[in-house]
Structure formats: structure tokens, C-alpha cells
């Protein structure tokens, strides 16, 4: 459990801050004029308090690590800590925050609500401490094993010119077992203790929020599973065999490829720009002539990923990287066929040459990997282009589906909650607007009462219904049975319109940033967004009408 400050200490500090602050002048603004409600004032105070904590901790670190301090052998560690605390408290950088906090703290209603919230938080932490500590111990073990595993994988990935040795493979297998055992034990703890489960759920949302802010991508369990499969494909099983990500429009193939590259090589992938998909050669490189009429090759994005160089004149080669080819089935089959044939099965360090390089040859860079994506033809979308058979045979393939959304696996809903979380880790939407509705189920045989989620599309808070609505639209687009199939039968399938998770997450971020501050309800905001999106003329009339029916069914 992380060190939790004592409530008295926090309040004491704020009170001292409040005493230091200049007196409020006669006629100063009272809360009713400044904030719409005491809750809003409290949230503001909370945000300032979090900011104050962050800054104070940064300053303390700064004092400890960077600033020269007079050496005092007699000073005990406790005295030193006390001295640093006092120095930090006196730092003028904190003064504006202290003033802002104290002015809010003088409002009785805001102060009482703030104290109450902190008290509840601390009581919650205290109650949770023993089980959380056990959980953290297990998690530490698991993280250690996982870290080592990723280290080994990255090492194998960047030394693909040689086979991984048996000891390494053995260690990987051992680590995989350790991770599984820890995971099982952690799952059991979580399942058996609802309080612990709630805390972990909060931390998961917090991590999602951070990921979303940093990379615009959330590593939910389904995406983690895909990452594991990609890792296995690129690193262990099929070294340098290109990998195809396939799946419906908007399942997040491109975002996934970018996130994988970031995680595996610490860099964005090499990608095709907005060039027309008529020729593969510019991707590999173009012959250039300098002023002395010397020829050289300027590598395109694929050429750079393969060689780790920008031009054939570069003396030093970098590590190369992942090349990502979107809508692979849109390229001319001939070029694609020859490209994949040349790349497939090549090992790092091997000499490689393409016609576009005009006789020039290079060594295959150690971190090169090829990921493509495609929306392949299906029964519902037979008009899409197939990949040439010879290309398909050479590719490893992985299906990417929409994030799952159900009572048992509410990934999409959790992504939405993360999008609504602000930088202070608060969700400032009334609780009754968010979760699903639980109904009591009494079992007379065991004389117990348990709870189940109400499956009625009209039940639950706006956010839950919205997540269910998006999932129903996606199912409809895929041609799967959905909330309207029972009544509309064959007319319950959308032909062109589908809601991409990236888009709905951006709506919720927009709500958090602006609409929420103007007190627009989540339901009103989403209704407008869905209405605007669903009435676009790019969609056929049948789709537009069906979307309205979905909206009605989920009461949005």
C-alpha cells in the first residue's frame, strides 16, 4: 500500500496554508457566485490539492537529489527529512497554490465536503490495506517475471540473425509459468474480495487514462492478447514472415500496429504516407543523382525500415524498425507478390536487394518487421479486393475484432470510463449516469440473494447504454445478431455505417474537456453526437433509419 498521509496532517497543512493566506476582503466573492455548486468548488479544491501534492513532491526530490546541501554528520535521517519538508514548505513556488487552496478552504460548505471526501478515501485505504498488500506482493513477482520476459523477447528480436539458445527458451517457458501462476493467484484474490476488486478496477482505469493521454491507445486485455500473439509471431515463431492484421473497418488495426511498434522498438512504425497505391517501388526507394552526377538511392519508408538508413550513402545503419502497410489489398498484386516473396523468411544481417535500388544491396536491419492490414472481402462485403493467393500464403495472419463489450467483459465501457477520467483521476459525471443496473436475484434454495446485470437495453446509466449501443452497431455492421435482429430480422444489419471505438472515445474526451463544464448532460451530448454522425449523407438511407432505431432501442 502506498504511504497514505494522515487526514489530520492534510487538514493541518491546509489550515496552516489558509492562515498564511491574506485575509479575505470585505465583499469577497462567495462560493455561490464562483461555483455552480459546492461539489464543483470541492472538485476544484481537490484538483488544486493534487497539484500542490505533485509540486511539493517534485520540489522535495529536487532538494534531495540535485541541490547541494551542507553536510551534517550528526543529523539523523528523520531530522533531515523534517528539514527538507520545512524548506519545501517555505519555497515561494508553492505560494500561489497555497493562496488558491486557502481561499476555497474558507468556504464552509466546500471545506466540509472536501474533508468528508478525504475522510472517506482514507478510511477506504485503511480498510483495504492488508489484502492490497498481499496483492501487490504477488503483482511484484509477476511484474518482475514479465519484465525479464520482455527483455528476453526484445533481445531475441534484435538478434534474429542467430537462433535463440535453448537456455533462453527454457527461461522464457519458466517465466511464462511463473506469470500464469501469479496471474491465477491475483485473479482469485480479486474475485473473492469486492473491495480489493474495486480498488484494482480504479487503478486499471487510471492506467488506461494515462495510456490514452500518452499514446492515444489503451492496452485493454483483448489488445494485450493481440500484442502477445504479434510478439510471438514476429519474435519467436515466424521470424521475419510478414504479418497481416485483418478485420472490419474501425477495429483499430492501424492504432494497434503503431502501439506495437512503440512498445517493441520504442519508435513509431515506418508508414506509407498519403501516396497513391499504384506503385510499391517508391516505398523501397528512388534513385537520385547529385550535382556531381553520382547516383544513390533515397530510401522510402519501407527501405528505411529494412536498411536502417535514409540513403544508400549513409555509412552507419540504424536498427531499422517496423514497417506498417495499411490496406494492403489495395496495392497492385504483382508488386505485392514480388515484395513479400523477397522479404519473407529473411534474417537480420542477410544481404538484400530490390530492383528499385538499382543494383545496390544492403544488410537487413536487426529490428525490421513487416505488419500489414486489410479489410478482406466477406459475405457482407464481397466487393472488397482479395489478397493474391501467393501473398496470402506467405503471410502470418491475425484477426483484429472490436473491443469486447458485455457484462462479463466490459472493455469498451471501461475505455469510455477512462476517457471521462480527468487528470486528477476523478470522473465528474453523476454516478447514476454511468454504470449498468444491477437487479436482485433471490435463490430460495440456498436462501441467498445475488445480483445480475439487467440486460434490458433501456436499463442502466447513459454511459453503459452507450457502450452497449456502440457494440450493437458494430455487431450489426459485421452481420451478427444484435439487439434488433429479433424484431427486424434481415433488416437489422448496417451496410456502411459503423462506430469506431477511436471516434467514440474522442467524443467522450470532448465531453470531459468542454461540454461537462457547460453542464450539458452526457445523454444530451451523446444524442447530439450520434444524431450528427448517423445522419451523414455518406451513409445510405436504410443505414440512417436503422441507426435511429438503435438509438431509440438504447434510449439515447
Amino acid at each position: 500500500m502506498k504511504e497514505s498521509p494522515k487526514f489530520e496532517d492534510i487538514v493541518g497543512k491546509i489550515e496552516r496554508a489558509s492562515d498564511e493566506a491574506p485575509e479575505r476582503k470585505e465583499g469577497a466573492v462567495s462560493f455561490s457566485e464562483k461555483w455552480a455548486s459546492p461539489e464543483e468548488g470541492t472538485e476544484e479544491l481537490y484538483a488544486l490539492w493534487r497539484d500542490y501534492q505533485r509540486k511539493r513532491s517534485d520540489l522535495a526530490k529536487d532538494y534531495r537529489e540535485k541541490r547541494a546541501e551542507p553536510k551534517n554528520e550528526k543529523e539523523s535521517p528523520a531530522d533531515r527529512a523534517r528539514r527538507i519538508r520545512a524548506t519545501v514548505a517555505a519555497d515561494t513556488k508553492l505560494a500561489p497554490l497555497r493562496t488558491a487552496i486557502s481561499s476555497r478552504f474558507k468556504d464552509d460548505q466546500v471545506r466540509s465536503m472536501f474533508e468528508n471526501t478525504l475522510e472517506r478515501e482514507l478510511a477506504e485505504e485503511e480498510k483495504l490495506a492488508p489484502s492490497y498488500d498481499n496483492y501487490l506482493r504477488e503483482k511484484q513477482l509477476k511484474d518482475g517475471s514479465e519484465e525479464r520476459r520482455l527483455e528476453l523477447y526484445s533481445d531475441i528480436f534484435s538478434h534474429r540473425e542467430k537462433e535463440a539458445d535453448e537456455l533462453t527458451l527454457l527461461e522464457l517457458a519458466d517465466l511464462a509459468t511463473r506469470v500464469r501462476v501469479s496471474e491465477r493467484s491475483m485473479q482469485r484474490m480479486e474475485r473473492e474480495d469486492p473491495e480489493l476488486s474495486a480498488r484494482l478496477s480504479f487503478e486499471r482505469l487510471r492506467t488506461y487514462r494515462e495510456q490514452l493521454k500518452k499514446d492515444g491507445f489503451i492496452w485493454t486485455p483483448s489488445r494485450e492478447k493481440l500484442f502477445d500473439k504479434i510478439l510471438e509471431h514476429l519474435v519467436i515463431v515466424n521470424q521475419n514472415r510478414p504479418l497481416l492484421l485483418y478485420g472490419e473497418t474501425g477495429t483499430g488495426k492501424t492504432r494497434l500496429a503503431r502501439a506495437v511498434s512503440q512498445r517493441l522498438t520504442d519508435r513509431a512504425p515506418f508508414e506509407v504516407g498519403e501516396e497513391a497505391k499504384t506503385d510499391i517501388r517508391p516505398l523501397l526507394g528512388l534513385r537520385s543523382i547529385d550535382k556531381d552526377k553520382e547516383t544513390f538511392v533515397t530510401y522510402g519508408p519501407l527501405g528505411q525500415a529494412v536498411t536502417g538508413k535514409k540513403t544508400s550513402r549513409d555509412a552507419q545503419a540504424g536498427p531499422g524498425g517496423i514497417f506498417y502497410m495499411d490496406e494492403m489489398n489495395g496495392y497492385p498484386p504483382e508488386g505485392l507478390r514480388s515484395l513479400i516473396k523477397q522479404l519473407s523468411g529473411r534474417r537480420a544481417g542477410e544481404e538484400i536487394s530490390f530492383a528499385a535500388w538499382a543494383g545496390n544491396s544492403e544488410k537487413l536491419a536487426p529490428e525490421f518487421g513487416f505488419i500489414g492490414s486489410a479489410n478482406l472481402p466477406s459475405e457482407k462485403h464481397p466487393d472488397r479486393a482479395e489478397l493474391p493467393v501467393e501473398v496470402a500464403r506467405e503471410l502470418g495472419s491475425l484477426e483484429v475484432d472490436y473491443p469486447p463489450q458485455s457484462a462479463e467483459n466490459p472493455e469498451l465501457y471501461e475505455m469510455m470510463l477512462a476517457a471521462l477520467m480527468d487528470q486528477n483521476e476523478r470522473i465528474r459525471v453523476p454516478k447514476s449516469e454511468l454504470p449498468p443496473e444491477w437487479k436482485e436475484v433471490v435463490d430460495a434454495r440456498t436462501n441467498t440473494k445475488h445480483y445480475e446485470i439487467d440486460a434490458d437495453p433501456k436499463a442502466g446509466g447513459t454511459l453503459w447504454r452507450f457502450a452497449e449501443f456502440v457494440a450493437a452497431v458494430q455487431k450489426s455492421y459485421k452481420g451478427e445478431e444484435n439487439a434488433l435482429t429479433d424484431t427486424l430480422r434481415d433488416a437489422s444489419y448496417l451496410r456502411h455505417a459503423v462506430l469506431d471505438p477511436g471516434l467514440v472515445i474522442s467524443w467522450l474526451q470532448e465531453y470531459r474537456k468542454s461540454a461537462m463544464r457547460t453542464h450539458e448532460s452526457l445523454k444530451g451530448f451523446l444524442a447530439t453526437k450520434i444524431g450528427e454522425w448517423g445522419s451523414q449523407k455518406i451513409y445510405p438511407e436504410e443505414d440512417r433509419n436503422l441507426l435511429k432505431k438503435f438509438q431509440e432501442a438504447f434510449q439515447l
Partner: protein
Amino acid sequence: MKRSPENPERPPEAIEGESPILTPSEIGALSPRVPHRAEMLREAPKPVEARILDENGDSIAYFPEAIGEFSPETSIMKKRDHTKAPLIFKGRTKDGKVVLETEDGEGVTIAPRELEAGYERSRRVYSERTREGKEVKLDTEAVLRESAGFYAAHDLKDFLKELPKEVKLTAASEGQLREAMREGFDKAMLLPKTEVQSANIETIVSETATKEIPNLQPNEQYTTPSFESGTKTSQTRNRPKRKVYLLLYQSSPIPDETKGKSPDQLDPLFAQKKWNGLTLSEYMLLQRKEAEAAKDHRFDAYSDDAKKSQWTWLLDSRVPGGVVHARWNPGYRRVRVGWLEPGFSNARLGARPAVVVEVEV
């Protein structure tokens, strides 16, 4: 949900008693992953007293309550002595004696310790010989246990709820079962009523035709199944209404005599042999069960070689103007379900037969 009556689009006020500012755990609990603890109800339902007459016509009062693994109305028999007719466990008397019902409907009492040490749930093992002389054995308790295990492993909770505590067959059903066994129907699965199957078709599909099977070769693992429009909502025929049933099937390949025939030709053949066709849900469940057991898709794999092909009509699943068919497509590594006109035939397409036996509940 509470809304302001003047402006329904305004955010609702906080519910009374609910703090407007959520703590971290309250935020975490917004996710349905966080379990809601089951609670013991304060007031236990009062036991209802029931009565049964003993061999002398005297009344025995008892409470129909479970003792250990035995719940009321469970059929039990003496351990290691399956020659005697089973007894029905009824409950316990006020002073703790165990009440049983004999085959003649009379009540008898025994000590709880005797029940625990000397009795077990009754098992019925049927044994028959096929015309070729092969012995076929079917243990209905084992079928119940295996079916329940399969549903539990595949998240089919509604199926589990529907299963009976034991497989009780009427004399007519027993006769039907024995006859089917003589015809070589050597495997069985217990299925809930068809209404429950239809309501869970999406779960069935995702659980049986998308999820990985451990220890199965990568080239045998499922990708996304393909369903022709309308097949998932196809109509089931020839199944008991609102009843659990035993589905008997053969572990052997599809009979050659069904190949190259259209449903119009197969219907009279199946009627004559007292066979049923499969339904879509049954096919989905069986193909998964068999793939898990055999570690490959031999049960339903399509092949260009008509003799080997296990592509099957699902004669008891119909769509308007057509009959559903299904197969494992080894090329695409997926289950493919489509429909064709009842007059259509193909040398590679046969029909897997089944026998439906009603179970008493």
C-alpha cells in the same frame, strides 16, 4: 433514473444519500467486473412440511430439505448393489431421520449416517449390441455429468440451470434409447429445451467456434466462423417442446447412404429409420465436443473426396425455402454454415443422423 422534470437533458441531481464525489474505490466499482457479494437472506424460508405413507399406512411427516449431496427427489441406490430398484430421497423428519420413497410409493426411514455411508446417486448404465455384434454402453449419469461439465467450461450458464439433477426416462423413452443403441448410436449429450438453445445462439457460436482448443495444432484452431444470413435464426423442427432431451449420435462417419441426396430425398429415409437430423445448435456443440476429444476436426471436416467428406445437412434446422448445412472448412480453418434449397444434392454432402429421447423432469 432521476431527471429534472423541467429539463430532461440536465444532469440528474445526486441520488439522496449518495455522495456526489466518488472515492477511488467507488469509481472502480462502476465497472461490472467488480463482483457484488452474494448475501445471506436474514429470514430463511420456512420449511414446508410434507407427508408420505409407510407400508402400514401410517403417515410420516418430513421436510423436503437437502442432506449433503442429495437434494429432494434425487434417485439413489445402495452402493455396489445396482440390482435393486432405486429409491427416491424425500427429505428429513423433525427428529433428523432420512425419508426415502420405495418403488411402490411407500415411505421408509433410515439413519442419516446410513444414507451417507451406504447410498449413492443412482446410475443407469444401458448396454446393447449392434447388428454387427459390437457392444454399446451408455451411462446416463455420466452423460449428464459430461454435458454439465461441457456447458460449465463454455460459459453456457443458462444451459446448466436447465439440466435436471438426474436423467429419468419413461419406459417408452428407454425403449427408444435401446433401439438407437442397437443402430450404433453410441454417444449422447443432454440438451436443454430448444428455446434456451435459440436464446443463447451467439454464446454457443463464440464459445464453440471461435475459442482456441488447448493442445490442438495451430492449423486446426478456429478463425471466425461464417454464417449465411438467416441461418442463426433458423427454425428448429422435430424437438420436444419446452423439454430437456438426450441427443444420441454416432461416433462413426456420416452414413454413405445419406450422401448425394437432397433433403427432399432424405426426409422419407430418416422417417423410415426413426432418425432425426441435427439442428444448428446441436451441430455447433457436437463439433466442438468432438474436436476437443479427437484433437482434430474429423467429425465435420469437408473434403473434396466424397467418401471422406463430413459436410452435413442439418435437416432439423430450416430457413424459409431452404435447409441449413454445415462443415469445417480446413482451408479457411473455420466453421461454415449456409443454406440450400431442399432439392439440392451433392456427392460430398450427407446428413448426420441423431435420435432424440425425451427426459422426464
